[in-house]
């Protein structure tokens, strides 16, 4: 039954009232669309550029950005590790594997999962070379604090291809399959640097 008030409401005003009353539904649908578009592969969601263009500001501002693409579209087929190699002024070489997760105990590898993220997924990549020198300088500072006197810092990426076959013995093969390595960043530490 219509109330006297509702009979006087014009259609646009009624529409506006309906929208205002349904703001939670509009918010949920809008957020769902924004989050879905933000996380989808561009090739599978044609409206992505348009929706992301609108949603980018609020999602970034409020920390609601997200991604759900781990092991996608395919998992890596190589094992990776990053090494820090320090040459000291007395000629000794100090080698530290930064993300050799298998060598760590259960708690340590759990606690240092972010090390794996940083070193294996980012620092080792050529695309992220901006991270190399800051890390080398950080390492030099820490090594000096430990009493070392580094003259050169090298960052080394190690990798081994995983056998495409799936067998129990291959899971334990991390130490047996030959690893390859490449020095991807070298920094000669100036004697007076940081002093």
């Amino acid at each position: 039954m219509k109330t006297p008030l509702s009979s006087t409401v014009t259609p646009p005003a009624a529409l506006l009232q309906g929208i205002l009353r349904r703001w939670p539904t509009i918010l949920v649908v809008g957020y769902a669309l924004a989050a879905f578009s933000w996380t989808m592969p561009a090739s599978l969601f044609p409206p992505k550029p348009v929706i992301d263009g609108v949603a980018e500001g609020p999602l970034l501002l409020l920390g609601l950005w997200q991604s759900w693409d781990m092991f996608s579209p395919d998992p890596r087929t190589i094992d990776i590790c990053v090494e820090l190699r320090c040459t000291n002024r007395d000629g000794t070489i100090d080698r530290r594997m930064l993300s050799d997760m298998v060598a760590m105990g259960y708690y340590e590898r759990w606690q240092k999962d972010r090390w794996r993220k940083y070193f294996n997924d980012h620092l080792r990549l050529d695309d992220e070379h901006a991270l190399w020198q800051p890390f080398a300088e950080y390492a030099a500072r820490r090594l000096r604090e430990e009493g070392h006197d580094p003259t050169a810092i090298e960052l080394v990426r190690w990798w081994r291809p995983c056998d495409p076959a799936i067998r129990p013995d291959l899971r334990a093969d991390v130490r047996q399959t030959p690893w390859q390595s490449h020095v991807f960043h070298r920094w000669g530490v100036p004697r007076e640097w940081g002093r």
Partner: protein
Amino acid sequence: MMSPWAGIRRAVVAFDHWVRDPVDPRPLAWFRSWLGLLSLVNLWLLWPDMPMWLGDDGVLPAAVHRDLVGGTRISIFMITGSSDAAIGIIRGLGIAGGLGLWLGIFPRCAAFCAWLAAVSYAYRNMDILHSGDNLIRIGSFFLMFARTGGVFSLPQSVRRWFFPQASSDSQPPGGLVPAWPQRILQVQLCILYLVAGIWKATGPTWRNGSAVGLVLQLGEFQRFPIPDFFLTPVMSQVMTYGTLAFELGFPLLVWIPSMRIPVLLAGLAFHAGLDWVMNVQMFQWLITAYYLLWLKPASSSPASFAPRSAPACSVRPAR
């Protein structure tokens, strides 16, 4: 027979009611409490490395960071600038937020603290983030707008222990509350699985059934030992296609009331298995908090840490 338009209209109306009709606050309170506890564990794990990841003297100096990050983002660094004081503030916010969410102490303020801590460390070094960080940021953000204060709350329970008469005279906590924060988080979980499944379905190794077998061979993700039985091509196919089926099926099946509990139990088994075999820090735990949002509370069960004289609330059957 119903026309397609009538069906769509009916679905839209049902969805509108699902979002706007008030709900029992207990699932949100369970979510809040479990998310708070897990965010404390997350902070505990991050704590020793915070100077390295977030500090000016760390791996990512402020000048380099500024060149890498685009867009405006709220963070504590907006106030402190590139200062190591921010680390102490993030730690304090993380503790206050986690404890408050866990124990229901000023829960909306606590959600703000947890959210501000999470967005701040995420802003300062995005290369250390895992998917669990996304879940903490998003969950704590929407908890800022959720009313769960009187339910599953330590202060409320203490008050009830010491002043049972006063609490029975007053309005019992746990009256119906606005549903939209819970709904948006439920939808978020569906988006998570749907998108993860779509991404995987585009990969050749996921389509040929070898993906999980390959992941299990990667040394960097290995955690606890698993029986040799699982490390065969056949089991790889079972687990790969099972993962795809679960991730693509969850967002559909969880809406069907009769399927909800089996789907949630399957999800728990799925994530427990992943947590056993794979060294991925907190994601498998944090996602279980979002499962709590799908549970339907028994209408007469206690909604607090302490026994109570009145029923928590009356709840309509879940749609």
